[in-house]
Each structure stands twice: as C-alpha cells, then as structure tokens.
C-alpha cells in the first residue's frame, strides 16, 4: 500500500493542474535481508492533467501499490494556483474523498508547491510531519481543513491559511540538504481565491485577533533609550470584539489582553520598580496595538474578515445582520475599529534585574 503523506497542487506547465504526492516509502526491515527497495525514505510522484481526479488517477497508474490518502497530513497549494484558479475544486475533492481527513493542514506555498515536498527536512524524517510540527510549535492556533471549510461556508467569515516557502538554507553541515522549508506568514482568501499574503508580523496580528498569540515574540524599544530594546514572549492572549451602533454607524471595539514573559532586556531599568514595569508594558501594548491595527486595515482593504468581526456583529444584533449581513464585504471596510491593548509582564526568566548595571546604580 502506498501511504501518501502530503499532496501538492500547482498550475501545470502544459496542462491545467499539476498534482504531486509524497509517498512514505516502506523501507527495508532491519532484520530481514530483503533490501529490494533502497534509497530515499520517500517517493514523490507528479502528474499534470486537466483536473485533480485525472491527475490522481494517472499517478495511481504509475504506482505499484494502492494509493491511500488516509494519512495525508498537509495539502500544499501554490500561491499562483490559489490566486488564479481558486481552490473550490480542490476543497470539494478533499472533503468528498472518503480517505481524506479534515484534520489535515492546508498550506499556501510561495512559489511552486511541489518543491516543498521535494525538500527533505532535517529534524524530522518526513516533510509533512515536519510542517505540522512547525505549526504546532508556533503555538495554539490550529488551522485545519475543517476550519477553512467552516469559514468558507459561513456567511460571516472568510478563509485564510498559513503560508510556507522554500529558501536556501542559510547554514548547513556538509550532508545537509541545500534548501529548507519555512513558515512565512499567512494568506487571505476571499471566497475561494487568494487575495493577499500576510507577513509573519501581520500573521501574529491575526493570531492576536483569534486569541491565540501564544509563543509569538513582541519587541519594543526601551522607554529611556530608543537604541536599546527588549522582547517578551506571549504566554496568553485574549481578544474581545464588541460591536456597537452610534447613530446608525457600526463601530467595533477590540480589546486585547495579554500576558507576557520577558525574554530579553537591554534597557537599564529595574523591574522591581512598578512604574518602570508599567512603562515597559505600555511600550509592549503600543507594539501590539499597532500590529493589530495594521492587520485590520489590511483585512478592510481586501474586504475579508477571517477573524469573525461579522460573526460578533451577527451575534450582537441578529436583526441588523439579517438585513445587512449579505452586504458585509461592502460594509466592513467602512466600519470604525478601535483597538485597545493591555499587556502584563508575568515572568522575566531567571533574572530579576538587567544583567548590566541599571541607570540608577550608574548614577549613584
């Protein structure tokens, strides 16, 4: 049986669709002397065809084993495919297939999707597992095929996906593969089409809005000295969105609460001083607020709503939504959104004071 772990979809060079499958290869058993199959632990097969089903069939015709999609962990979609073709076809194919689980992770690839499957990972044996592990390592925001499907059929949401790309490996040992795959940010969808790619920083803003900013790092300049900076790693974050109507005008208040652990501090400040700590927190708050405001502006500019502003409005005033809901993409860019942030520093690692002399001590 051929166990497929990853699927990549590109626009073909000669025909409309190029489908690539990554098979886990049944290596030789340790004891048995049957070393019939040698080489890589994976096998990548690609075909171009008029549609996904045909491409799948053609790959199956070349595979000596029954192709099983039970264990597909990632579906990689090239940016170009998602922008120009839309992913309606692909989503239907995946959701309908009895073997495909909705817990797989859809990813947009900057560049050719196939190359991701061709790039061997380093800390894990197989690239699909590696990608899933990277996303899990990033924090609590799980975004799977199921979530995308739910968002796509809902009246209030639009979909988004994480993006990855293949880069030249900046550092490497002699045996290391020359390239590696990195998670770069996220992609916004309007309906079935990709409309905008977000940078990693913007993606963190998205995570804040979805109340899952865990493990992201915020960096701000020191209050006294703009040349020095400090960083905090987010431990918890919660965002509430409260819609209200002022004279018929819709307005949404976004309130962010976060708890942060300091991981780096070059400022010459003493954390024991409450006032100083509050100033540090204020700087962090500013950073978060600006980041979130930025990403909201991006959403508005693309008329997309991946984090559920519309849903909050609907839950808040169902009657208003019944009337205006269908025009949400038009209304949304005009909505006034105010962001407030409140960040508290909870821990500061194993150091209480900076590792250098503080301002106070110097002056003494």
């Amino acid at each position, binding site marked *: *049986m051929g166990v497929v772990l990853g699927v990549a979809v590109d626009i073909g060079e000669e025909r409309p669709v190029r489908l690539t499958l990554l098979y886990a290869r*049944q290596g030789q*058993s340790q*004891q048995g*002397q*049957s070393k*019939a199959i040698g080489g890589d632990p994976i096998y990548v097969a690609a075909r171009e065809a008029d549609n996904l089903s045909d491409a799948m069939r053609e790959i199956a015709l070349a595979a000596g084993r029954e192709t099983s999609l039970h264990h597909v962990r990632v579906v990689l979609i090239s940016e170009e495919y998602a922008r120009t073709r839309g992913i309606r076809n692909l989503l239907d194919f995946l959701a309908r297939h009895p073997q495909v689980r909705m817990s797989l992770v859809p990813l947009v690839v900057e560049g050719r999707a196939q190359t991701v499957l061709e790039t061997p990972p380093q800390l894990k044996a197989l690239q699909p597992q590696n990608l899933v592990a990277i996303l899990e390592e990033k924090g609590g925001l799980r975004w799977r095929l199921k979530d995308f499907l739910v968002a796509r059929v809902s009246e209030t949401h639009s979909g988004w996906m994480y993006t990855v790309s293949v880069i030249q490996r900046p550092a490497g040992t002699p045996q290391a593969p020359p390239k590696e795959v990195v998670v770069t940010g996220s992609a916004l969808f309007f309906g079935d089409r990709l409309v905008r790619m977000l940078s990693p920083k913007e993606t963190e803003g998205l995570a804040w809005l979805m109340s899952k900013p865990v493990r992201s790092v915020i960096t701000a300049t020191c209050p006294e000295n703009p040349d020095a900076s400090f960083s905090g790693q987010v431990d918890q974050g919660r965002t509430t969105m409260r819609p209200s109507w002022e004279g018929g005008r819709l307005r949404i208040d976004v309130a962010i609460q976060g708890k942060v652990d300091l991981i780096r501090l070059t400022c010459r400040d003493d954390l024991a001083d409450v006032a100083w700590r509050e100033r540090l927190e204020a700087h962090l708050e500013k950073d978060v607020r600006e980041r979130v405001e930025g990403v909201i502006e991006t959403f508005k500019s693309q008329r997309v709503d991946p984090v559920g502003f519309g849903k909050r409005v609907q839950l808040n005033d169902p009657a208003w939504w019944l009337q205006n809901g269908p025009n949400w993409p038009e209304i949304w860019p005009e909505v006034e959104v105010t962001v407030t942030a409140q960040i508290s520093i909870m821990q500061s690692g194993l150091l209480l004071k900076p590792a250098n002399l503080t301002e106070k001590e110097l002056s003494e």
Partner: protein
Amino acid sequence: MGQVEDALRYLRRWQSDEARQLAETLARVAPGGPVPEELRLSLAGAKRRMPISPVLDENTGILRLIMGPSPDVVFRAFEIGADAHRGSIFLIDNLVKKDYIMGLLEVLVVRLRQEELPSQGQALQHFLEQRALTNHEVNRNDNMGELVEAALSGDSILLLDGLTVGLGVSTRGWEHRQPAEPVAEPVVRGPKEGFTETLAVNLALIRRRVKDERLRVEHRRIGTHTGTDILMIHLAGLATPEVVAEVGRRLDRIQIDGVLESGYLEELIEDHPFSPFPQVRATERPDVVAADLLEGRVAVLTDGTPHVLLMPHTFTGAMQAAEDYYQRWPMASFLRSLRYLFLLVALLGPSTYIAMTTFHHEMIPTSLLIGLMAAREGVPFPALVEALMMEFTFEALREAGVRLPKPVGQAISIVGALVIGESAVRAGLISPVMVIVVSITAIASFVIPFFSMGLAIRLLRFGMMLLAGTLGFYGLVIGLLAVAIHLASLRSFGVPYLTPIMPPTAEDMKDLMIRAPWWFMRRRPREFPVGNRVRQRQNAGPQTPGKGGGP
C-alpha cells in the same frame, strides 16, 4: 479341576429356569476342557440374581468361572474354630492391603482356633460380625453380583460353609499418589495440597477443610463396566436444593459403559453440549472446592481422577484464581483487572492486528504505520495467512510441549519457538511484529486461570482471525456479538453464565474486576436464588484501636 462340577452343583441347587439353562450349557463342557467365553459372560450377566450357596465349594466354583482365569483373583482357604469350619477369603490381589489380610487371617485362624462356633446361618454370621471381625467396616453381600463388585473395589469377601451371605471386609489399600501440589493450578501463596486419584483421600481432603456436619455426601456408581464411584457433595442449607436435585437427576440419567475421568461426566451433565465454553468447573485444589461449597455450589468427585467438578459455574468464575483470595486485595484486584484485559487480548489480539493492517490503516498513527509497513515489507503472505501460520505453529508447539516427556518437552518448545520465530523472521516469511503479536497473545491466553476457558478462547481466536481477515473490524464486531449472544444465552444449572455482568448485579461486582477485601464480602454471591447468604457478621472489618487510646 473341580470348579466346573462345583459350579454345576451350585446351579442345580439354585432353583430357577435361568440356572437350569446355564447348567445344561455348562454340563456340555468337556471335563478338563476350556470353558467357553460366552458361557462365562452369561454367568456374569446373571450374577446379580445368583444367591450365595451354603456350600463353600459351590460358591468358589461359580466365582472362579465368573472371574475367569486371572492370576490376581485369590481364594485363600482356611479353617476356623474348634470344629475346623471351612472358609475362604475371596479377594483381588493388589487392591487390598496385605497387612489387613494378615490381620484378618490372624483373627480367623489363630484367635478363633479354640472357639466353639455356631454351626451355620444367622448365628454364625452374627458371631462373626459382632465378636470376631476387628475390621472397621463389614458389609453383607447377598448375591454374587454385589460380592464380585465389592471384591473389585478392594474388599475381602469372607465366605464360610453354611453362610448364605458373603461378608465384605473393608481391606482396601492400594498404591496411590500422595497429595501433591497441583501442576496445573500452582499458587505462590496458599495450600500446596492437591487432589489425588483416590476418592477416599479426596473426600478426606475436603472434610478436613469443611468440618461441618451439614456437608452432605451422596454416593453413586456410574459406568456399567468401570463401576466408577461418584460422590456428590454439597453443604446443606447453603446450596440451592433445586440445583442439588438437578445435579442428582442429571447424574442418574447417565448410562455409559465407563467413566474414566470427570470430563466424561462434565460433557454428560452440562446444559449446552455444543458450546465451546466450559459450564462446569474442574479443579485439583481442595481449597477451591471448599470455597465453592461455601458459596453454595455442588461438587462432584470422581474416583480415579484428581479433577473435581464444581457447578453451577459462571464465566466470571473462570477468571478467579484461588490465590486472588489469599493475596492482599489491592494486588488481587489489579491482577483480576489485568486478566480481563488480557482475556480480550487473547481473544482479539491477532485479529485486531489483521483487521488494522489489512483494512483499517487509517487507525494506526502515521509514524507507527510506516514502521509497521517497513516490517511487513517483503513478507509474501497477507496478514491473515501470516497470522494463521504463526498461531497454528504456536499451538502445535504448545501441544508438543505438553505431550512430550518432560525433559524433552521443555527443550523442544524453547528451541522450537526460538528457531521458528527467529528464522521465520530472518527468512522473511513472517514479520517481526507478527511474532510480537503472537507472543503477547500466547502470554495472554495463559493468564486465564481456568484452563478450559483458555482453551475456549484459543479456539474462538481462530474464528475471529478469519472474520477479521475477511471483513475487518466489521467482522470482528459481528463475531464478538455472536459470542456475546451465545454467552448471554448460556446457563449453567439454571444460573445465567454471565452473572453478575449480565444480568447486572451490583452487589456481586465486589468480586468481578476487583476483589473486595474479605471484611467487605459480607454476603455470598447472589447468583443462587435462595440459601443462607450471610457470610460474616456486620462490622467484621479490622478494627483499629481508637486514636490516643493506645497502650
């Protein structure tokens, strides 16, 4: 010489048509010639109707004819009393204890040498029984049939001129095994005594544990040829009278030539003869019998085998080992739960593996699946065939291990398992994972304390494997449901086989997956409808002295 004439005289004295015909046939036998076997058989067939003749020689003559020319049939002639009254002791050599015979002869020949004996009849019999014989048990046998049976059971038959009964003197004593630790049911903690092949010893072993006058023992003799002694034992007041009566009825119904082991009886009295599950428990342990008697069960002892039958028997009973009740209860409970878990493994281990690898790889975690597939790569058979091959081989190995003489057996099974397992994997015939699965299953099937239940599970396992190999998990569900329906419809002497699981009896759960502490088991299991259910008085638990009130 002589015996034919004596027998003829006996037959002529016995006034009946049957005797006349037998006499005619016997008269045709050439003097000194061999007596035809048919004639001996027809004489034996009439033995229960043959009275004892007052003439000693006639009796010995006919007895010799009936018994045939066996070297261990002994007639020891003697004379007793002052008037040299003629007598003979009829016995089967080696079934009697020689000391007893010597003692008997000493009494008869030496002590009574000077005595004036009553000449014959009632008076003589009374004299012997009341004043002469020192043995603890003397029975009167009124016909040749009883007499022969008594002799074959090890009694010595005292025949005297002028006496129309044969006095059976209990002189039983033969070579037998001493009670030793049962091989099949060993314990770490607990009595190391097991039943033997001798009925009397076995009964004594039980009596020693249950010193209660309410212990009722009923005797039966089953088997037209073997005449096996059967004892049915229960504790009056605890056992349900209906169950006791039903066991008796079923035993009485048996018409068979021989009972050589309690397994014969088991199959003849169980409720569902086609079920693979044992509905009667067999044990070699007297403590188990005693415990079951105390729970109101009926025990059936069979002469010639150390295996005692206990009924009614339930599924959960098969999962209880004697030692559960001797070890501390938390440990016993853990082991009990472990057994249920491994019962499932024993039944479903290989079949689950087959179903998952053949049909449902989606169930296996991805990384494990890749490992499994790598291990199975190169194995030329489907998982089902692979599993069947291994299981059959293993069963054969196990069987060989049991059948072969002990010193060889162990070596063979170890070497066999190593060689076959190791080389089959190396040769690429079997995947290493399958060896693991089969080994775990094998271990699991030994975890079931009652051997016959383990056998049933082993048998069903093959069915499950076939179902899993053809219909995957669906087949497994179907198979499990069939087994469950079967178990739910089984009854052992009126008691549902799955009590207390189905029907659920909350109170009896105390002895199911967990074995509750002894002080908690105040009542006997509910599975029997009546009977005295209180096991111990209230507040029988260990009492800690009050705080601060210590010595």
